[in-house]
């Protein structure tokens, strides 16, 4: 059980992640799952739930950090149209692997969060859009949902109340772009996953043109604790405006990579040194990708940055999905950037001119530069082609594609240049 004293909390989404068989309903229930649900369904109403979530300060864990309670309050009521709740379980951002653990180890936490969110938003049909590669996770989720239906936690008249909600798992087909919420909606509607321009926002016109809330797995999995212990309880954890715990998926040159759920505001250094066993080589990182591959890189000078949405923006990057990729002195950043350029070129949906043409262009230039066939003019091309993609497209994929290249150019231009020099030497000696 999660303690009601905010000081004593050690985790929210991952509180039971290590409990054997927590994925089964019986075990989850023993650990408190669905215990507070009847109270919510019988004694809470939409306004109360939304108020608690607003008070909690919860910000979306999917990447943008948008306040969840505020998002819910944008959903128009009594439109005569159904409202949909979609859980974004596409988890495609390179470096991110947290939602996966929630789903495979504690699926009932997500289900409970979705029932509560669904109840607040008067949702009849909710979906979990799960990354196609997560076959095992989808199976676990489906089994948990089956058990929940059997226990009257889903379906008609949940726990004897007037509230009914169906929950369906939909497997994606392996496109990163389908994690972008409007591409996700298109995909769920059975169409190619191409983001929609906004406005209209999904809250007003989303799935099949109806009001729709899209939330990340971790966001929804945080809701049961907030409602049970109160928004103020959650707000007391972490730092102001950046409350609660956050799961960080740490990978790269650390000794103990993995998922760590820590209070917001924990510093990067603490996370890496105390939780992850420190760097593999050296004492300070060469570069850190703090919020998934789409975020700008941080340098050693930022090692003490507190891990909050606001501090990372101040540091020139973003918290994103909380995927921290650590690179020590052994990292080949040109190769890394080339690989990421390939990823974005492959994953661009292709509709916007700068992203469609820009990502491919950047990848080809990076290929050439990496293999030692670059020239000084390429630096300008890389810079301009990246700069004019970012912020000029329908979705933020283009910004993500630009970020690594711009970071490389800003912090390690000489690493690029040395590749060029290398090739000239080789050519001369050949």
């Amino acid at each position, binding site marked *: 059980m999660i303690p009601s004293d905010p000081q004593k909390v050690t985790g929210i989404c991952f509180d039971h992640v290590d409990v054997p068989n927590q994925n089964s309903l019986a075990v989850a229930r023993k650990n408190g799952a669905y215990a507070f649900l009847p109270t919510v369904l019988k004694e809470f109403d939409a306004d109360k739930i939304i108020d608690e979530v607003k008070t909690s300060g919860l910000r979306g864990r999917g990447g943008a950090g948008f306040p969840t309670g505020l998002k819910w309050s944008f959903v128009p009521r009594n439109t005569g149209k159904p409202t949909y709740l979609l859980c974004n379980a596409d988890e495609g951002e390179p470096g991110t692997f947290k939602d996966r653990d929630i789903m495979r180890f504690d699926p009932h936490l997500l289900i409970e969060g979705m029932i509560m969110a669904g109840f607040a938003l008067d949702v009849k049909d909710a979906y979990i859009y799960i990354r196609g590669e997560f076959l095992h996770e989808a199976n676990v989720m489906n089994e948990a949902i089956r058990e929940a239906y059997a226990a009257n936690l889903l379906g008609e008249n949940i726990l004897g109340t007037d509230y009914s909600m169906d929950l369906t798992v939909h497997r994606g087909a392996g496109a990163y772009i389908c994690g972008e919420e409007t591409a996700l909606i298109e995909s769920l509607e059975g169409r190619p996953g191409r983001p929609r321009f906004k406005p209209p926002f999904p809250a007003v016109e989303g799935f099949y043109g109806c009001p729709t809330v899209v939330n990340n797995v971790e966001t929804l999995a945080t809701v049961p604790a907030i409602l049970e212990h109160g928004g103020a309880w959650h707000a007391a954890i972490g730092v102001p405006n950046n409350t609660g715990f956050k799961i960080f998926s740490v990978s790269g040159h650390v000794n103990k990579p993995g998922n760590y759920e820590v209070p917001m505001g924990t510093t990067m250094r603490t996370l890496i040194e105390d939780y992850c066993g420190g760097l593999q080589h050296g004492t300070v990182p060469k570069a850190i990708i703090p919020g998934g591959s789409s975020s700008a890189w941080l340098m050693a000078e930022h090692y003490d940055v507190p891990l909050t949405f606001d501090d990372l923006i101040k540091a020139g990057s973003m918290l994103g999905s909380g995927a921290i990729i650590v690179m020590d002195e052994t990292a080949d950043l040109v190769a890394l950037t080339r690989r990421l350029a390939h990823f974005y070129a492959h994953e*661009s949906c292709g509709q916007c*001119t700068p992203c469609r*043409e820009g990502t491919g262009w950047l990848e080809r230039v990076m290929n050439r530069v990496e293999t030692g066939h670059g020239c000084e003019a390429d630096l300008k091309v890389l810079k301009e082609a990246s700069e004019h993609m970012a912020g000029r497209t329908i979705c933020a994929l283009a910004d993500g594609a630009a970020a690594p290249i711009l970071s490389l150019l800003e912090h390690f231009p000489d690493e690029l240049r040395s590749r060029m020099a290398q090739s000239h030497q080789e050519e001369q000696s050949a």
Partner: protein
Amino acid sequence: MTALYINDEEVTVTPGTSILEACRENGAEVPYFCYHPELSVAANCRMCLVEIEGWNKPAASCCTPVAEGMKVRTQTEALEKDREMMMEYLLIHHPLDCPVCDQGGACKLQDYAVEHGASHGRYAEMKRAVVDHDLGPFVSTCMTRCIHCTRCVRFADEVAGTGDMGVLDRGDHMRIDGIVEDCLSSELSGNLSDICPVGALLDKPSHDVSRPWEVTRHKSTCTQCPQGCDITIESRGDEVIRIRPEKDGMEPWICDRGRYVYDAFRSEQRILEPKVRESGGLVAASWDDAIGRAVELMKGKRVGIVFSPDWSVEGLTSIRLLNDAVFEGAKVAFDLHRRDMRSFAFEEGLAMTTQQIEDSGQVVILGSDLRQRLPVLMQRLRKRINAGKPVSRIGAMNYRTNTEPTKDSLIRPRDWSAVIAFAMQQVSGLGKTAAGMDAWMAGVEGRHEAGKLLADALMDDSCALLVGEEIRSHEDAAALIYGLDLLMRACGHAEAGKDGRNLISEGMNPQLLSSVFGDVRTSAGELFDAASNGELDVLLLIGSDPQGDGLFSVQAKQAMDKVPLVQVGAISGQISEYAEVQLPAAAYSEVEGSFVNMEGRIRVAENPLSSLGAERPLWKVMMRLIQDMGGDIPAVNLDELRAHVIRFAPQMEHAWRSSDELMITAARNNTATHASSTKAPSRSLDLISRYSMYREGAWVRASDLLSEAGCLHALDDVLVHPNTLAGAEGERVVRTSSGEQSVHVGSREDVVPGVLFVAKRGVAGDLSSESEVDFVGGAA
């Protein structure tokens, strides 16, 4: 209204307008590729970026709505750099082959490259290779030039309703593909080459023929269907290169029929010189000789005149003048599709404009294959359906509309009176009635529940009836139309300003024809019968082809076997086998003249193409005939002729004097009160024949391009419902009033049981003349 600032200038626009539209309305230039006023917003080209004060990044103006007090800038250094970069992105894979591209000179990409692009590109990597597609006879592709704006895809989805263009793959492999190779199934497919902003989709027939700056543009009116679209004929010298929608015309699109018929202008079928029959064949003659021969054949004889409604107003009036001057009392017919010559309570022509129809509360299509008949009006209805407004339909065949009507009911033609009577019963139950309605209802025995659909629509505040060929060609048409008239009056849809009684005409100028020929017209069938029975000595055919078109081909052929034929026209056609004399009349592209479309909209063509041969405007041919027949010439110039037009049709009074848009109204006959026929059907199957836009009309049959499309879109010769066929598809013998004949019958669920649907009129024997048939040996 929303007030905002565009480059420091305050403007006001309708709330919800996009910034791009606000800029366009107020003369601020913003470059764009993917935006198109007739299509949904895609916002993918990113060329339309503007800056908004307080925003930290540029915004795509096409998808950003205006807001009160917003400060927009369209010209800044940063935006110029953005535009330069957009052009660079777009051009990295482009072949840069403007010198050999048909679009060159009229290409957005080329224009913007000059205006916004850098002087050279920096892309030094591999270029993308893509394959071209065979998209049928009208659209050629050069997909390396595609900029992925998806205009074509949205056109196919939203305008054509066929969805046969799509986007495959993603990233820079993304490509536009025709899902149905070989044949774009839309009757509007020719518009694709206009809508593509670059040279990726091009007009196939005019491919590699000319450059945009070589052509002269002639504003004209398409006469290939009663829609009478505003067109621009592009020519080089006297050669027509293309036909396109007129830029500021009523409709943004034209159909393939109107667009590609131009190859008939130069076809072998054109009558470009006078000809007379000598020892079996038609040989060229001088005007004098040919006129002499015609006069010889007609002077002092009993003449039957059959003409096409598609001539200009002046041409048509000159036919009437010929009749009055030298053939007083002759039989005159022009409609090859009307069996019932009693006057109609509402005559041919629309009471509403297409815009009013699009906006009407309800639209009901009664017995019409509207996509084939009036493709552009059908497009308007599709737009309506896409916007969630209802369109219902009753008819004998599930005619393809490419966007499903909201409600649909299949009935046999013999059920029309029961449908109308049922609707009357319904509306009178709701307290709506008109004098005469009870009597009409009482005269009909049966009731058909499809009438519910009609009654429901009639209960709306506004309702547009589109009465089509199934009713117009019905043997009891006048009674059915009177029944509909009663219904419309009962429900308040007949008053001026709310009149929803639209009778779709067979050709152009319907309102004018009612005025000019109302008192002398007879049925074409009756006219041909008269010739066969020895009551006429000679037939004068003016542009009409009763052998290829219409319902009277059998009678027409019998008549022409009997009496000599004088043919005046622009297209020769199969019927010329019968002609003793051919007199060439100028095509619609070659005359100064006026046209009235089905809405009553008047168009005056003033900038014709020059003649290809010895052809003369029809009115001059008519005057010459009058003269040589010994009559007094009633008009020696267009002004005098137009005075005669006004004498017959006073509504035309201001047609040539005012620059305002003039509309003339369709005739209404309060005395046309006809009870429904009580004649019992004598055969088991009703017959409906299809109008194919690729086959109907002499002009169209002379066009190789349209014939090719016709083959691609062909159906089985004759279709029935599988239950009606009761047996295998194949050769079947049908019994008609004139005997038995064998036809190839296919089956489709789309045809209502009990109806024989003739898909190839004129081709499938002469069944079209019939309205009822039986299968021989094999119950229906």
